[in-house]
């Protein structure tokens, strides 16, 4: 068989297998969504929106642990509201999700501010360290020899006779 045709065949097979694998993966995604989704469409959308907001705030360096606790309690409330068909509980869950969505950007901004402050303090610390290094470069030999003389300056040096 011609080498070129063989290469084309291999390429074709690889493409087909990639299409099959990707389509089966998307089928699996749909299956999971269908089987284990939150029934209330609004709640489902808000949970995902809240999670994305929290993840974004975390990427910006914010401390999202209180938001995660709030989000998990909202998810639990949604499930409880769905199992008991309690409308009031669902409203409470939705308002808690709204709170998370509202708070997350502020937490993200706090993260950015904290990172900026950390960079400023690091830059100042680096400046101080380099100043100390420069001073040490200039004066350290002088200081070292002064100390050396202070401790060992009174020593007597005596030549030892060679055997």
């Amino acid at each position, binding site marked *: 068989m011609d080498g070129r045709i063989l290469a084309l065949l291999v390429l074709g097979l690889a493409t087909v297998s990639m299409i099959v694998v990707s389509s*089966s*993966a*998307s089928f*699996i*995604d*749909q*299956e*999971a*969504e269908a*089987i*284990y989704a939150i029934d209330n469409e609004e709640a489902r959308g808000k949970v*995902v929106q809240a*999670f*994305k907001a*929290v*993840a974004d705030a*975390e*990427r910006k*360096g914010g401390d*999202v*642990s209180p938001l*995660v606790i709030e*989000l*998990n309690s909202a*998810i639990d409330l949604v*499930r409880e509201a769905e199992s008991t068909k309690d409308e009031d509980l669902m409203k409470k869950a939705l308002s808690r999700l709204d709170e998370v969505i509202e708070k997350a950007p502020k937490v993200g901004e706090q993260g950015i501010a904290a*990172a900026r402050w*950390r*960079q400023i*303090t*690091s*830059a100042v*610390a*680096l400046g101080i*360290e*380099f100043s*100390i*290094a420069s001073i*040490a*470069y200039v004066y*350290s*030999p002088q200081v*070292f*020899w002064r100390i050396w003389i202070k401790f060992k300056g009174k020593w007597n040096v005596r030549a030892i006779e060679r055997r």
Partner: protein
Amino acid sequence: MRDDEVRAIVLIPILVIAAATAYQGFFPKRTGETFSELAILGPNMKLADYPRELRVNENFTLYLYVGNHEGEVAYYAILVKLGNRSSFINETFSMDAPVIAGYKRVMMDNETWIHPMNLSVNTTGVNLRLVFEMWIYSDTANGFSYHGRWNQLWLNVTAPKPP
């Protein structure tokens, strides 16, 4: 000892401290290998005493253990499926079997979660497989996708006791 040697001895620790300061200040987040943990604990919250023989609709408790080491906040779904000896599952493909329970949780990086699962099986069978699959919310897939982590328990389920 020459002046340059004195300078080197004094400057090396200062430069090491300066490098550490710069690294901490400007590259604070370090992530090594990222992974998620999934384990099933027995009724005594240990890796032992798993049920093997059950009656139909008999309640039993297991504990779910999930660990997030993905380097970021993650939204997990754990699906409990009931399959049999011929059901197929591996790290790429989830099992095509009915879901009997599901648990969702948003988790911080390096957080672990232990959650009780009150389960029961409503069909008889020998060598049934209770499979626990880990799914994770993916921004790119815009939904949950199978994360390749799974555990299983082999069960023999017999008819309920006559009253």
